[in-house]
């Protein structure tokens, strides 16, 4: 990696940290301005409420709360849950949920990309034939059907009717019970990747350098994989980042349907019960993941295509 690349990465890291801080501040304010309070038991007296608020430091002015939150956060302490899982450590709650969501997201992206690329290349090589049409129809369907509808469909078919798979997630049967949600999540990825790969492959295959390579007498395999696919991949990688982040945030409904105790489900439940610390930790994690993904994607361009320069000084 050249000096300029490192300098670029460093600069991006600093910007990312500043962005994260601003996001955290805005989040903190927004959460505090949510109507109501995390202490929502209608049976509590005013003084009992005040006692609980004092216990969690909610009675302090907002700036004080924010500074304290940042201080604790830097030591890895994200506070405790106020009412969703009363007094449990948020870091462990969010940690285990995020682990599951991340595994699901990554699996869906990997499976989706492999199948999608295959479909795309296949369609491009058989351009304007019946195979192309079939592959295109599959991807259009995949883009149009929301993942949760697909989840409901396969749930009905595989779990309820055929009884091949369990209806809901269970950690004692993790692999089997993860098949459906991951499949549901990967449908959108397959469709998007297939469409992009096809379009890019078609334009690359008709370009002049491909004619030259062909004229050089290269065999078909080298032609497709080394020359065509590699060039066609760049735009695909551009969309993979957002897809991955969307998957992590967009797993919410699928998580709810398949009863997966992931980050999305935790976030929804915490918003519904005004559990400030969980909302903050979940949203912050999403923001951090998004920024991190963007950085990775930018850097990976340079690795795939060395002509893309990240720094200015060359």
């Amino acid at each position, binding site marked *: 990696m050249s000096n300029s690349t490192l300098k670029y990465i460093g600069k991006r890291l600093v910007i990312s940290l500043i962005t994260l801080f601003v996001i955290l501040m805005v989040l903190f304010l927004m959460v505090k301005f949510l*109507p*109501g*309070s995390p202490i*929502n*038991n*209608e*049976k*509590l*007296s*005013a*003084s*009992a409420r*005040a*006692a*609980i608020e004092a*216990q969690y430091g909610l009675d302090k002015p907002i700036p004080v709360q924010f500074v304290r939150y940042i201080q604790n956060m830097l030591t890895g302490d994200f506070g405790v849950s106020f*009412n*969703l*899982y*009363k*007094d*449990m450590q948020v870091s462990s*709650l969010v940690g*285990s*949920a995020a*682990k599951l969501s991340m*595994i699901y997201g*990554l*699996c869906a992206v*990997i499976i989706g990309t492999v199948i999608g690329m295959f479909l795309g290349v296949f369609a491009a090589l058989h351009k304007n034939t019946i195979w192309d049409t079939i592959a295109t129809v599959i991807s259009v369907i995949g883009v149009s059907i929301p993942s949760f509808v697909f989840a*409901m469909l396969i*749930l*009905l078919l595989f*779990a*309820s009717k055929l*009884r091949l798979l*369990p*209806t*809901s*997630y*269970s*950690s*004692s*049967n*993790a*692999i*089997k019970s*993860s098949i459906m949600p991951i499949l549901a999540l990967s449908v959108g990825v397959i469709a998007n990747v297939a469409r992009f790969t096809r379009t890019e492959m078609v334009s690359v295959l008709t370009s002049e350098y491909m004619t030259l390579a062909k004229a050089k007498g290269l065999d078909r395999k080298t032609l497709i994989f080394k020359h065509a696919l590699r060039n066609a991949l760049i735009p695909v990688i551009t969309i993979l980042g957002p897809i991955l982040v969307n998957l992590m945030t967009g797993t919410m409904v699928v998580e*709810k*349907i*398949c*009863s*997966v*105790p992931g980050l999305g*489900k*935790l976030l929804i*439940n915490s918003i*519904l019960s*005004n559990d400030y610390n969980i909302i903050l930790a979940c949203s912050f994690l999403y923001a951090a993941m998004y920024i991190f993904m963007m950085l990775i994607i930018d850097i990976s361009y340079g690795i795939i295509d060395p002509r893309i320069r990240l720094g200015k000084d060359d």
Partner: protein
Amino acid sequence: MKKLFSMVLCAMMALTLAGCGGSGDDSSTYTYSSELDIKNLDSADAEDGCSFTALHAIIDGLMKPAKDGTTTYGIAKSSEVSEDGLTHTYKLRDAKWSNGDPVTANDFVYAWHRIFKNKGNYYYMFCDGIANIAGAQELSDKIDAEQDLTDDDLNSLGVKAVDDKTLEVTTTTRVSFFDELMSFPCFYPVNEKFAEKQGDKYGKSADSILANGAFTMTKWEPGSVAEFEKNDKFYAAKDVKVDKLVMKLVQEPKVAAQSFEAGETDFAIINSDLVDKYKKDESFKNISEGFLFYIQPNLENSDLANLNVRKALSLAINRKDLCENVLKDGSQAASGFVPSGLSISPEGKDFRDEADTYTSYDKKAAQAALDEGLKELGKSEITLRLTYGTDESPMDVFATYLQNAFSGLKGLKIEMVATTKQDRIYNKQKNGDFDLSVTRWGPDYGDPTTYLTLALTNNNNNYGHWSNTEFDSIMEKVNSETDANARWQLMIDAEKIMMDDLCYIPVFEKGTATLQNTKVKNLVIKAVGVPYTFEYVSK
């Protein structure tokens, strides 16, 4: 490079997802699907039905629900009440905690002190008007005055361990439902040595709580599942028929129904969309939740201070139609402010069977009452805001139904105010910024006073500020009356006063539509306290 990356990912996946194990559809495992989550297993803090259900699976109090739904002895094997009704003496049986320690009278004393020390959610249950335990009101007043409680303060609470197996509780007045109250989770014992060792972590995970009940907790994954095994140290272990208990947590009703069809669960709560599909099914059962849904009118609004206007509102609601055709979840029309199935009279009759019916549907009479009310007010039209929380299902459906019903009256305009539950209660209702609020109340114990006290002038939840001196004085008599029959009659009279004046407009008693495995017997379902008791379940 890419190959390496994908291999590492695959290895990670395999490692994290490893640990396959089959879960069978056998008769020794009972599986229960919950729409909600277990929030907390600390009996000082737990406040929701799902946590209560899990808590009672592992811990017994002095008393507990019996197979037939009445109250029976738990850790206590006998009890005695002094003649003046103020001293309750419980003899404890030889029960053990799951770590082998005996359950002693001190475990109760410690647990109850701990609730005050931690200023937990439930110290109000000990105070005047509910358990009336001696000294509790003074401690509560000190907490309210933000004073710290000393050990001497705590020792002034009317609970004493006479010896290891004898617990003596003193109350300030006769409490006719005291035994039933002792089955409520906040009165459960806590093993002092264990709890002190766990500190803040007590009751936060499967291994930070001890069992003395029918099951021990083996696994608890928030948002996913809780698993229990039969507790061999349980004093009635030979009567526990299932070896394993599984609570599936936070399952969507549609998914729970699918799980039920696939034979993965024995109990599922379904929503009204699914009722039509299953209502002819043998496994379909409606159960009562004990919650009363009602309208709280703001009596400080001059239009609503008019009794005829309130009467018109109550008469305009077709409660039966709302329950049977809109909610479709087993809810039933409320005929008074104390729900049915809550409390049994000394003669063995339900409160609702003995008290009058105060609600009916008559659109013409409603219009007539409104016309009369408008005449008294000297107005041709009034506008009322209807405040409801969109996050408390089925409040939205309920509120929309009311809007339609009230809009059918000439001279009444309804403005909908949609907000959240917290905002509705703590901002709108508390500050009097509402006209009509749709709200609900769940019972804390199986006595009519858990509802009737809501109408007391100084009750914190009386946001509409209704005040009636006759009602207040009858309620005072209810507190001090020693004759159970006379007390019962007083409560019936008290309800009549509040219902004749419609300080609240009761609408429906919430039910739940469920699918239950027909092979399962003896699941105890209660509208008060612990909703589900698994101890007697057989499959």
